[in-house]
């Protein structure tokens, strides 16, 4: 009997061990999997949107903000009369009744009826007090200045993620981190009031303070609009930069778009041509040839060059000027934009030196402004140049550049030969105003000496005073700059087009004490009127922008002084 009782005890031990093994299998081996299944059927996760950082201009004016707008949802099992409810909701929202009814009868306990609608509609619906119809405030991106600086700002898509521009490039600062509210629902879909609730507070995004000045931007946009519409151009770009710091004060392109309704525009309108498109800079690039020639002491301002009476044959190729010039000094060659004279200087320099200076001015490389989609431009290394290349490159052909690279070139001349890294964002600040990250102006390199830069300024000033840039001049203001009129290379006929031009003007103001470097590029001005020269199309806009922007900045500075006292 005792033995048999012991056997019974043994069987219980065996049973117990088997159970323990089963516990181990279920809770340790399949535990994670079971945990997921359990969460999947009982957890209700509600995202709490973090507030996206705002974007301010240099003076603290709002360029992009997040506003709270109502989103309407239904808890379907709380809805009393689906027919009537759908009718009333549809009436207020201006939506389709059958669609709303379908959502209410979808069988889901929670359905969105309308995301991010107008404030007024939310208020009206709330007043109706329909059972089961609720609203929650969600944030929506709003650009109070509409189309202003749209290419700089970019936009935010439906998932509240930045696309394009700074919204994309500085997304990691702007986004913040969404919070979560995890609650528990029972099998019938009811939220359990006493259930374990997991709350993760949202972390709001950081604000951006730009170098952009809304006043300068407005002036630039207005003048760009005028020239764009007057010449029925295909595209146009304007850039205004503070040469001392590399800060961009204005950046605009045409065509452009309203980031509040970006999806109503064609993709081409979204492109930020200032950094994501390249063009042949043409005569504006002659400044590089001049910088190289002065520094290498190849030629000086008063040295004479034979401009071959407007036509010069090299390598079976005809180089021509728009006006037949004879013998001129180098200053006049640049001021009058003689291709033949400049090409001869290029030949004297040699391809290695020309390449070196182009490279040092930043051509063929990204400026590092930090926007996505920035292009390098095309600057081939000298070993890939043909015999003709030295002539064409020295007058700005056979190379391509972004508008930003070209304005940097002129800003460098204005800044006594120092190339500054272009910048758009001054600082990243937390919502309570603490500085998270500050971007100081950064010198890239001294490209030419201050003395050479000064000499170049005088030549460029002559170009405005009595050269091709005459139409840029405005009374009471000394300007320095260079026109550019580049024939567009037509990929269809594989030749330079006879009717498609890029007209541009680049320079700085005031000439002796530069505050602004400005570039105006007009792509394919309608040539049927016979006006397509940079001097006629872009130069006047340059002059107007320079004058208005300087006046604005001076007054602004004056105002600031007054306010501080």
């Amino acid at each position: 009997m005792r033995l048999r009782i012991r056997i019974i005890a043994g069987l219980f031990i065996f049973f117990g061990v088997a159970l323990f093994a089963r516990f181990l299998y279920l809770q340790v081996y399949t535990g994670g999997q079971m945990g997921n299944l359990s969460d999947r059927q009982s957890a209700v996760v509600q995202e709490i949107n973090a507030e996206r950082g705002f974007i301010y201009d240099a003076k603290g004016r709002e360029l992009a903000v997040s506003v709270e707008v109502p989103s309407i949802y239904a808890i379907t099992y709380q809805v009393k009369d689906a027919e009537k409810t759908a009718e009333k909701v549809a009436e207020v929202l201006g939506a389709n009744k059958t669609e709303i009814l379908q959502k209410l009868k979808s069988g889901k306990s929670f359905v969105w009826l309308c995301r991010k609608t107008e404030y007024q509609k939310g208020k009206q619906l709330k007043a109706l007090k329909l059972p089961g119809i609720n609203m929650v405030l969600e944030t929506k991106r709003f650009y109070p200045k509409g189309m202003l600086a749209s290419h700089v700002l970019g936009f935010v898509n439906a998932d509240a993620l930045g696309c394009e521009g700074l919204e994309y490039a500085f997304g990691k600062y702007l986004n913040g981190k969404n919070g979560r509210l995890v609650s528990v629902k029972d099998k019938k879909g009811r939220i359990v009031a006493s259930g374990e609730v997991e709350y993760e507070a949202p972390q709001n995004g950081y604000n951006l303070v730009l170098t952009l000045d809304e006043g300068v931007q407005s002036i630039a946009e207005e003048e760009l609009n005028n020239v764009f519409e007057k010449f029925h151009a295909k595209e146009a770009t304007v850039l205004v930069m503070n040469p001392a710091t590399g800060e961009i004060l204005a950046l605009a392109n045409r065509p452009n778009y309203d980031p509040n309704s970006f999806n109503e525009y064609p993709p081409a309108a979204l492109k930020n041509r200032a950094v994501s498109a390249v063009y042949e800079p043409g005569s504006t690039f002659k400044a590089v040839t001049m910088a190289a020639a002065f520094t290498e002491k190849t030629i000086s301002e008063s040295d004479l060059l034979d401009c071959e009476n407007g036509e010069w044959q090299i390598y079976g190729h005809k180089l021509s000027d728009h006006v037949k010039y004879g013998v001129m000094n180098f200053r006049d060659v640049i001021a009058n934009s003689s291709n033949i004279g400049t090409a001869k200087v290029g030949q004297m320099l040699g391809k290695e030196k020309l390449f070196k200076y182009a490279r040092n001015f930043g051509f063929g490389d990204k400026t590092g402004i930090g926007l996505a989609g920035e292009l390098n431009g095309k600057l081939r290394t000298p070993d890939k140049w043909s015999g003709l290349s030295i002539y064409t490159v020295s007058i700005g052909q056979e190379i391509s550049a972004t508008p930003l690279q070209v304005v940097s070139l002129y800003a460098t001349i204005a800044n006594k030969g120092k190339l500054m890294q272009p910048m758009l964002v001054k600082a990243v600040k937390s919502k309570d105003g603490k500085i998270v990250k500050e971007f100081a102006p950064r010198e890239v390199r001294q490209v030419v000496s201050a003395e050479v830069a000064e000499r170049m300024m005088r030549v460029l000033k002559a170009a405005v005073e009595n050269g091709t840039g005459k139409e840029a001049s405005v009374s009471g203001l000394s300007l320095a700059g260079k026109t550019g009129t580049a024939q567009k290379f037509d990929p269809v006929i594989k030749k330079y087009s006879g009717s498609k031009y890029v007209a541009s003007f680049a320079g700085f103001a005031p000439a002796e004490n530069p505050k602004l470097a400005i570039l105006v590029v007009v792509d394919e001005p309608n040539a049927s009127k016979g006006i397509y020269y940079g001097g006629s199309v872009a130069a006047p806009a340059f002059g107007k922008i320079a004058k208005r922007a300087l006046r604005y900045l001076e007054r602004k500075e004056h105002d600031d002084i007054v306010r501080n006292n």
Partner: protein
Amino acid sequence: MSRGSQVDLITPRKKYDGGVILTALILLLAFGVVMVFSSSGIYSDYRYKNLYYLIMKQAFWIGTGSMGLIFFKNINMNKLREFATPFFIASLILVITVFVPYFGKSAGGARRWISLFGFTFEPSELLKLAFIIYVAAAIEKREKVMKAFMNGIAPFFFIFVIAAIVMILQPDLGSILMILFVLCIMLFAGGVNLYHAFAVGILLIPSAYLIIMKASYRSKRIQAFLDPWAYSQGISYQIVQSFIAFGSGGLFGKGLGKGTQKLFYLPESHTDFIFAIVGEEAGLLGATGVLLVFGFIIWKGIDIALKLDETFDKMLAVGITSWIGLQAFINMSVVTGLLPTKGLTLPFISYGGSSLLVNMMAVGILLNLAKQVRR
């Protein structure tokens, strides 16, 4: 046998420590109260509009059970032996009363309860205890002829069949299997001829098969048991939800009260499947703890059986121990999918009045037996 108090007076010896069993029982009851409250609160609030309705009832039954425990702890064992047969017959009659109109109560397709003063009682629970006492007494009476067939093993199965018939009418297969298992263990311990036992077993198999396959819900339970994940939204919904609950507890559980499976995902989460909630909220740690406490009670019970002198006492200790132990282990096996679903509660932890009361009475007898142990 000198079971007199004289010896006690001469050498004040240490009595067998029934206190540890009582401690283990209190541990289980206390943990059970926590788990019943955790698993029934929301259901109770929904069903009776009172969060505490079921836990208050449970508290009442623990009180009643304590009285039952104290009564049987102090009852004279000779009285119990004498009353074994009338107690058994009375229990049988009580089970039949569930079929008396206005007196019996049915739920879930089974007629197992009688209603008295607003409290329902399941007499088949009492029958289990009465059956064990009766079998223990009978083994003692037939000790000399246990090896025989007609006088040894056969009468026990005759009695079993009577009890089984009464219970199959309800139907209550779980309880029938339970008393069958306990009977087998007691007969084995009581020294029955193993060849005879084997022969009876072979006779029983076809009838067991018929009983199981007759009711479609039982054959479905077998299917659900064999491949639960294939029918996770159908017949094996409950066992799959039990896996999810038990498994999701992991090592340390979600925390007492913090489980989610009781939110109507797991049916019967405060009764037959409460152990799944134990696994969910207390993890491997809690589940193993409960297993070990039951193991401890079984060990102590077997130890008592080995140390007792009289056959009735021995058999009673074996019967009660294996009953509580088996019911606990089988319930855990059902919850963890080792055995097909059966309507069995987890002793002392599951919500349920009659089973709690009767189980506590049984522990009272075990504590009484502990007092008889000579050291």
